[in-house]
């Protein structure tokens, strides 16, 4: 049975998305029964979207045309 710390490690290290099916099933079961990890997973998906926007924002030109 997967524990919280292992679930969070699999998720935050990026291994979960490419993990073998058995690990993903175990992780899915853990998420179903653990409200803490479920909330963390939702936040992690939000973090991905935020980072996407942050990347875009970093590469925006200056509105005033920038310094010469």
């Amino acid at each position, binding site marked *: 049975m997967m524990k*919280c710390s292992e679930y969070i490690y699999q998720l935050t290290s*990026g291994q979960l998305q490419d993990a073998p099916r058995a690990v993903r099933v175990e992780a899915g079961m853990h998420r179903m029964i653990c*409200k*803490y990890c479920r909330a963390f997973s939702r*936040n992690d998906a939000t973090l991905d979207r935020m980072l996407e926007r942050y990347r875009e924002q970093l590469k925006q*030109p*200056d509105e005033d*045309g920038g310094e010469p």
Partner: protein
Amino acid sequence: MDKSLDVDQWVRQWRAPMLRFARLHLSHRHREDAEDAVQDTFTAVLVADPATLSVVEPRRYLFGILRNKVMDRLRKRYRPSESMDRPYEDDLDQLLFDNRDHWLSGVAPASWQSPDDQVESDQFFRVVDVCVNNLPAKPARVFSMKEFLECDPEEICGTLGISKADYWQCLSRARKQIHLCLNQNWFAGETL
């Protein structure tokens, strides 16, 4: 097409964001490295085929070259001496989980609730900046190479001379700490 005019306009429009991007990866201690990387990028543009410049999308083109210039510097910086090779030991878990590996009470962040326009504000991005800058050096390097330079794991491990296990450890640490930092500094600090 007058190439010098185009490049001149690109410099005016893109130099500042490119410098911000380069400084994110080539830290403030090496300020001139970031400026050199941007300068080298525009030099590469000046010697490029004018036909190419007329068809490229400036942002993608400039940041593509800049990414390579930053990577060149990171490879040089980490190859000879800086000891990235010692495995990173993550001590954050002892603050998050009990001895049965479950969340400690009052630590797990609650679900974040924030309207989209709030997480696109300059203030929010400043908080993200602070959270990334507060990471320990090695996880910060791995995280920013993955998320902002968009390197694949092999490229990161090769550049920093670290193992895949160490890469996973660093990435996990960085992401967990950013969760806690954003929860505390942007999402009202609610926990479950």
